């Protein structure tokens, strides 16, 4: 899923300074699951904004709502009336949802209420890890299901580097060395020989480095 965390209230407040009527819009998908921008967080944020502005002697009218999926245009029409009523929208969806709001309601500004952090998964209550960069050319078949692009700090294809110690990455002692995990898993499956193959320089053109990506599938087009 896409993992996000709410922006500091101070930052949202600074952005809202000139506005009097605000819609805080949550999203029912990934940001709900990672507890950054679902209905609960939208209500909390709205309340916090309201209290802060009252305290500052500059009251604000805040409404909240949550749509099922801000990243798809089909789900946005249902909030048109709320958007039109407001001076500005604060979206608690990921960057995709925020942009979709700005495109769909292009007469109104939608501001970000969260920082979109990464594609990843929860590892414990309140903990998430990044494990996919969406590079467009999956190598998980070669690395025993552990992504060296996302999980190695240096995105090495021929790891591990010399900074790996006791299974941890040089960047942070709390971070597992992805290549240590790959080597261990290859040993478990008796496939360590696979590492003798020298991986060629990666084709990054399938990733963002090839420019913003667009996907077209003729087979599902109408």
């Amino acid at each position, binding site marked *: 899923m896409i993992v996000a965390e709410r922006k500091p209230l101070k930052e949202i407040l600074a952005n809202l300074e000139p506005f009097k009527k605000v819609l805080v819009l949550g999203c029912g998908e990934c940001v709900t699951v990672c507890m950054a921008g679902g209905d609960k967080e939208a209500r909390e944020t709205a309340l916090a904004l309201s209290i802060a502005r009252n305290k500052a002697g500059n009251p604000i009218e805040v409404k909240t709502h949550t749509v099922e999926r801000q990243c798809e245009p089909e789900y946005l029409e249902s909030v048109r009336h709320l958007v039109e009523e407001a001076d500005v929208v604060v979206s608690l969806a990921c960057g995709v949802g925020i942009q979709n709001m700005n495109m769909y309601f292009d007469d109104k500004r939608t501001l970000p209420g969260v920082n979109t952090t990464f594609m990843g998964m929860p590892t414990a209550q309140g903990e998430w890890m990044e494990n996919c960069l969406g590079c467009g050319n999956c190598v998980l078949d070669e690395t025993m299901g552990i992504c060296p692009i996302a999980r190695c700090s240096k995105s090495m294809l021929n790891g591990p*580097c*010399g900074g790996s110690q006791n299974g941890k990455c040089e960047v942070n002692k709390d971070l597992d060395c992805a290549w240590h995990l790959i080597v*261990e898993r290859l040993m478990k499956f008796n496939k360590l020989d696979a590492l*003798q193959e*020298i991986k060629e*320089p990666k084709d990054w053109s399938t990733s963002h480095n090839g420019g913003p990506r667009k996907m077209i599938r003729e087979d599902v087009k109408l």
Partner: protein
Amino acid sequence: MTKSNLQKVLESGAFAVTGELGPPKSGEREVIEHHASHLKGCVDSVNITDNQTAIVRTSSIAAGKIILDMGIEPNVQMTVRDRNRIAIQADVLGAAALGMKNVLCIQGDHASLGSEPQAKNVNDLDSMNLISTLKKMRDEQEFIGGDKLDAPIDLYIGAVANPFADPFEYRPYRLAKKIAAGADFIQTQVIFDMERFELYMKKVVDMGLHEKVRIIAGITPLKSLGAARYMKKFVAGMIVPDHIIDRLKGAKDKKAEGVNMAIEMIEHLKTIEGVAGVHIMAVAWEEIVPEIAERAGLLPRPTFD
């Protein structure tokens, strides 16, 4: 093909000696010349670090040219951290045009550990890719993208090995991979844990790798107890055993003891099968290198016509 001095020394079978110079955080030519002057005549080639520990310094190729002008052969370190394949290949050509032949392929410490922690880490290639890229440029006169070089270049391709990183069991295999990728010589991480290094070398020799590549063992003379503790605690991929710290702690003159330990280590390294030379990393203490080289019986250095 013209060979570098380092290549000639290693191929002659002589025990090679390399030094290291960390360029300054300034554009002062004379500072580079001052550090390098201590190494002249004591080593066969001088590594020029490439923004070591991800701290911004004078570029390794520029500093390499300065010492080349002094008659000292550089070994240009090149990381994949700060440049993509376009810049790297261009810099290799530039280094060759300036007369530099030794290039040491390095991944590079992560930028978050250095002076610009907000920098983008490039890592378009990894260190293994860099080795094979240089080999392709030299042996096939071809760039990664398939374009041909207009003329051949001379390169002596170096790579690094860290016997102290984990997983330990995998490290000799990683060395084999670097050899297969095209490494001509290897320089190791600083050795303090001699026992672990010997275990590593035993495996390397068992695998016959020492016959395919020349391995230069890294040492650093310890200047103070603080330096030893710092390396133990903060330098990525380094092991400093307690007995080293204790010996330094017990010594009256720490610097002299550090030098003694370095010399003992060199003497020991000479006896280890598969070790073809020693890489003395006395960055910011270059003036001690002549004494170490002299007392360790490494002088005079061989010369070739």
